[in-house]
C-alpha cells in the first residue's frame, strides 16, 4: 500500500494528472448530452471507416460464393419473363393477359464455364453442372449477352456443350424487326465473333444493325433471346433465292464465364409430335 502511494508521489504529478484527467473526460462524455453525442458521432465515423476498409479487403475472400449465388438468382428471375412461358389462352386484347394465361415452359439453371475453346474448327465448353443438377443432353445454353451452345453430353457432375462456334451448329434464329426466320451457322472459321444467318428469303429487306434473336421455333431456346446484330448483307451472288447475312455476336465467347442452361419442360411432347407419335 505504501509502495503504491510512493509510485504516485515519485512521478511528480504526471501520473495522477493523467489518471484523473482521463476520469474527468470519461465523466464528461458519459453524463453530458452534447459531448456524448459529439463523441459517439466521431467515434463511429472513425470505427466505421476502419471497418469499411477492412471489409473492402476481406470481401475478396467470398466473392466467388457471392457471384455464384447471384447467378442463381438471375436465372430464377430470367425464367419469370414472358418469353420463358407458354401462352395458354388467347385474348383479343393482349394487354389483358394475367398470370393464369401463362404456363412455365422454360426453366433456367445457372452454371460456370470450366473450360472453353474458340480457335478450333469445332469448339466445346465444359460446365460445372451435370446429371445430378438435372442437366441432360439437348439443352440450350446462353449467357447475359447472347447464346453459347447446346449440351451434347453430361455425366454426374459436368456437361459438355457444343459451342455455336462449331461447324455442325445450327441455331434457329430470326431477324426481330422482320420476324424473318433463318438458320444461324458458323462459316468464318477463325473469327469467333461473326456468324452467318442463312435462308433469309430474298424478297425481305434486312438492314445493317438489325437485331437477330432466337426464333423460339426450336425446343432448345425460348424465343426472343438476343444473339447479335447484322453487320453485312450480300444479295446472294449466285443468283439464288436467299440473302447472305453476316451477324456479329453480342457476346464474346472467349470471356464467357457464367451461363444459364435451358430446360424445356414441354420437351417430351415436342419431340414426340416431330417423330409422328400421337397423344394418348
Amino acid at each position, binding site marked *: 500500500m505504501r509502495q503504491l502511494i510512493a509510485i*504516485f508521489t515519485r512521478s511528480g504529478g504526471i501520473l*495522477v*494528472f493523467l489518471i484523473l484527467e482521463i476520469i*474527468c473526460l470519461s465523466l*464528461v462524455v458519459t*453524463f453530458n448530452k452534447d459531448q456524448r453525442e459529439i463523441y459517439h458521432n466521431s467515434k463511429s465515423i472513425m470505427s466505421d471507416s476502419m471497418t469499411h476498409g477492412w471489409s473492402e479487403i476481406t470481401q475478396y475472400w467470398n466473392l466467388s460464393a457471392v457471384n455464384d449465388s447471384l447467378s442463381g438468382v438471375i436465372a430464377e428471375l430470367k425464367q419469370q419473363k414472358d418469353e420463358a412461358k407458354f401462352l395458354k389462352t388467347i385474348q383479343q386484347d393482349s394487354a389483358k393477359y394475367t398470370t393464369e394465361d401463362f404456363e412455365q415452359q422454360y426453366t433456367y439453371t445457372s452454371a460456370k464455364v470450366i473450360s472453353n475453346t474458340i480457335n478450333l474448327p469445332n469448339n466445346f465448353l465444359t460446365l460445372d453442372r451435370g446429371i445430378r443438377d438435372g442437366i441432360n443432353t439437348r439443352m440450350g445454353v446462353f449467357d447475359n449477352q447472347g447464346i453459347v451452345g447446346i449440351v451434347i453430353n453430361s455425366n454426374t457432375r459436368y456437361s459438355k456443350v457444343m459451342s455455336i462456334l462449331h461447324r455442325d451448329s445450327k441455331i434457329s434464329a430470326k431477324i426481330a424487326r422482320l420476324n424473318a426466320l433463318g438458320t444461324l451457322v458458323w462459316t468464318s472459321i477463325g473469327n469467333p465473333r461473326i456468324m452467318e444467318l442463312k435462308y433469309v428469303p430474298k424478297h425481305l429487306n434486312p438492314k445493317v444493325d438489325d437485331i437477330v434473336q432466337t426464333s423460339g421455333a426450336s425446343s432448345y431456346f425460348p424465343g426472343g433471346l438476343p444473339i447479335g446484330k447484322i453487320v453485312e448483307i450480300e444479295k446472294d451472288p449466285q443468283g439464288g433465292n436467299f440473302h447472305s447475312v453476316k451477324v456479329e455476336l453480342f457476346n464474346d465467347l472467349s470471356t464467357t464465364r457464367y451461363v444459364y442452361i435451358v430446360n424445356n419442360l414441354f420437351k417430351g411432347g415436342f419431340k414426340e409430335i416431330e417423330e409422328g407419335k400421337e397423344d394418348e
Partner: protein
Amino acid sequence: MNNTTLTHSLRFIFLVFIQVLVLRQMTVGWGDFNYVHVMIYPLFILLLPIRIPDPLLIFLGFLLGMAVDFFYTSYGVHASATVFLAFIRPIALKILTPRGGYNINHSPNIKNYGFIWFLIYSSSLLFFHFLFYFIVSVFTHVYWLEIVLRTISSFTVSFIMILLYVKIFNPRD
C-alpha cells in the same frame, strides 16, 4: 486540523457556494449574449501553499471541479479544467520563481510576492484554465469562434472579479 487546513477548507466552501449560488444565475440571466461565464473558484487552487505535494494538488483540483460540477450538473467538465489547472500550477511557479527562490512556508499571494507577480501568475494560469474549460464544454473544433469568444470574455470578467476578491479579503498564508 491546523490553522492552514482550516483556512483553505473554509475558502473551498466559500468559493464553491458563491460560484453556484450567485455566479451561476448571472450567466443564465444575460440572455442572448451568453459568452460571459464568471468563475472565481479556480482561486482556491491558485492560493494553496507552495509546499503542497503535486499529486495532492491535482487531487484537490479534482475535488473542487467535481463539487462545482455537481451543482451545474455538468459532471466532469469543470473537473477536467481544474485538474489541468492544478497540473500546470507547479510549472508556472517554476517559471515565475522570484530572485531569492520561494519560501517553503508561503502561499502565492500579494502579501508575499507583490501585486505584479500575482497579476502575472494568476492571469496566465487562469487563461489556460478558461481555455481548457471551454474546449471541453464545446467539444468540437467546428464552433471554434464560440471557444475563442467565450474564453476571452469570461477570462476578462472573472479576472477582474478575482482581483476584487483578493483586494477585499486579502488572503494571507
